[in-house]
């Protein structure tokens, strides 16, 4: 009996010593799993590839050390306050389908046990995925869906870093107003009657329909006449009747909210039908993708697009130039609005986890609500990231801002985007009117 007692004491003693000697990190978090839901197939696959590359680059920087990059996440290997835990990404493809997005969110939360979610680009999918996250009290950061309604639902587990379409659309009308006031670099004041007539064509899901509504609202507010406004299916194989309708409106300014394949098709059809408005403006998305440029070539010279990042930003922001170089090495393309925002989304996740020092949802929630990332740490030209915690836009970053770029042919013969708005950071004279195709 005594020998059994002694043997038991010995075993307990060894176990206790093993416990004391074990490194404390062994009990800590080894990795933080972030579920990333993007459209990787279908019409927006090109955007999906860009978003994925942006997130992967940010993860590589966060998990390693790149001391020359002036951002906190590049100085530590992994999440410092979680014992150096690495970020592990689990990608899912929602195909632009809100129902599939919701199912994938459940899978990520319940099966893969992710600590948080990042996504989903399509506002319609972000809506269903954020609803699932809200049900399960799992934090979700959105970096690239711009429908204003998303942050007006009072959700407590949803944060959005990107500015939304209300701000972007206002920027467009400020540019048009600036044209009439002679504020645009390289353009003399244009009489308002020359650009008074507008027409808009927007794809008909959550995002496009909201943009269409905002264009109507701001056109009225700024005293422009919206002669034609309609929605179309982004999956359409033919947009000739839509373009005929736009042409028939005799609009001076044509405004679009399109994803990649339809943006390309729209411009091709405008070209085929010899449309000749004075201004063509795209609400980011398809109008800013590398495929838009490579497919349409020189014919896009003079087309405007709103964005949150242009390669020209590297001239005014050193950090953007450094990250852009890394991105170009990885993909062969410059950072764009989608990839830069996806990068910023993952960077925000890292900052939130550092502040929380835990993967408990409640700690992450408190950290996200209190976080402040200064603008100097971001690749996008924003004042920073700070989420609204009261009012009717819960979880919206209040320090974001937009840019408007114009495709111009450089001296080297290459088409690139030049900043034309905000006026104080213009990088080139604006081409006005649009020279035609």
């Amino acid at each position, binding site marked *: 009996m005594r020998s059994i007692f002694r043997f038991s004491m010995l075993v307990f003693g060894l176990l206790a010593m093993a416990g004391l000697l074990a490194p404390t990190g062994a009990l800590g978090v080894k990795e933080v799993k972030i579920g990333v839901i993007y459209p990787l197939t279908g019409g927006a696959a090109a955007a999906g590839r860009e978003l994925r590359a942006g997130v992967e680059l940010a993860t590589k920087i966060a998990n390693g050390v790149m001391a020359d990059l002036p951002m906190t996440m590049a100085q530590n290997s992994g999440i410092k306050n979680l014992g150096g835990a690495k970020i592990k990404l689990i990608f*899912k493809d929602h195909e632009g389908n809100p129902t599939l997005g919701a199912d994938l969110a459940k899978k990520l939360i319940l099966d893969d046990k992710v600590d948080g979610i990042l996504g989903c680009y399509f506002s319609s999918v972000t809506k269903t995925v954020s609803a699932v996250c809200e049900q*399960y009290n799992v934090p979700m950061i959105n970096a690239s869906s711009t429908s204003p309604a998303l942050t007006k639902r009072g*959700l407590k587990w949803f944060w959005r870093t990107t500015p939304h379409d209300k701000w972007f659309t206002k920027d467009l009308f400020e540019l048009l107003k600036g044209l009439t006031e002679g504020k645009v670099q390289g353009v003399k004041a244009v009489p308002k009657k020359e650009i008074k007539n507008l027409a808009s064509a927007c794809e008909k*899901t959550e995002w496009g329909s909201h943009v269409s509504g905002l264009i109507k609202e701001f056109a009225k507010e700024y005293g422009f006449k919206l002669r034609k406004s309609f929605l179309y299916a982004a999956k359409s194989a033919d947009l000739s009747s839509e373009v005929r309708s736009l042409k028939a409106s005799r609009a001076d300014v044509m405004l679009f909210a399109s994803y990649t394949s339809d943006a390309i098709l729209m411009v091709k059809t405008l070209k085929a039908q010899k449309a000749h408005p004075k201004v063509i403006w795209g609400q980011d998305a398809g109008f800013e993708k590398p495929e838009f440029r490579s497919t349409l070539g020189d014919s896009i010279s003079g087309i405007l697009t709103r964005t949150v990042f242009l390669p020209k930003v590297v001239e005014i922001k050193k950090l953007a130039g450094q990250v852009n170089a890394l991105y170009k090495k990885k993909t062969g393309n410059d950072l764009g609005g989608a990839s830069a925002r996806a990068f910023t989304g993952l960077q925000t996740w890292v900052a939130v986890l550092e502040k929380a020092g835990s993967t408990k949802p409640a700690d992450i929630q408190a950290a996200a609500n209190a976080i402040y990332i200064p603008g100097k740490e971001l690749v996008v030209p924003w004042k920073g990231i700070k989420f609204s915690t009261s009012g009717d836009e819960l979880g919206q970053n209040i320090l974001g801002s937009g840019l408007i770029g114009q495709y111009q042919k450089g001296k080297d013969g290459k088409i690139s985007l030049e900043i034309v708005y905000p006026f104080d950071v213009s990088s080139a004279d604006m081409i006005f009117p649009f020279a035609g195709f």
Partner: protein
Amino acid sequence: METIRNALDFSDFPRLDLTVAGAVSIAFVVFPLFPHSAFAMATMIQFLMFSLYGMGWNTIGGYGGQVDLGKAQYVGIGAYTTAVMLIRWDVPFWVSMPIGMCLAVGWSFIIGYPLFRLKGHYFAIATIASTLVLKDIFEVWGFVGAARGLEISPIKYNPPDFLRLIFRDDIYYFYTILGFFFLGIFYINWFRKSRLGFQLRSIKDNEDVARSLGINVHWAKVKTYAIATAFVSMVGSFHACYIKSIEPEDTMSLDISILIALMAMLGGAGSLWGPIIGAGILIPLKSYLKEWLGAQAGLVGIDLIIYAGIIMLISAFEPRGIWGIVEKIRRRTRS
């Protein structure tokens, strides 16, 4: 009483079929009791939903031989009725669902009456057109949220809410749709042996002969179209509560219409088990191919190629679908 007895009477099926069906039914009922992933549960719910869509389509498309490619409009009517009534007037699911079915059936009479003057390809094209028209109307109709659609607030209700069908855990949705699934099987079992069922099969075989026998061909088609519609609308109502966010592009798209017809055709149109087999193969195949070969594996798009390849193979091998293959094997074994 006679109707219930007919609905529960499966005695004309071979014993093997009934044994398999019974075993599968028990497996469905006990499925949630065994360890399973949330993804498997979501796939099961999708399978049951598409089985019901397919059963509805099978009445007019399978037994009646009328290729209907416009079922998405009725999914939309059901989904929107439930969502609008819940969001605007807080009407429970169990009240809004039958109202949605009535509205869909009413609309099906309006659409079906002139459409069944057409035959063959013309009828199929007309059904597509009618869906696209209704979808376009919904996309500009502010009352139903226009193109942005409607969202059942994720924070307003306290799940589990059995009246409004608002749950957090999918197990509740699973058993609800499973209940509809069994009711659907019993109904179709009754339907295929009903007077209308026999009339339809004779119309499918030879419309002129059916007419000469005194069958009101046009009216029989319109009535069956309404039955198919009621099924689809019922699942549409369920879809609204399950996903909690609907928009025309997602709920009433041509993709949905084609998927519904594809599942039933691939499984075996005109047979009780066909739509269930079709959905049982295509839904898990699509979900799991994407899971194994999709985004995480870095083989984006390969899953879709394999999925399409399998559909083409089955169609080429036996145009009557998988049930056709089963029957072919059976005939060979007998002979």
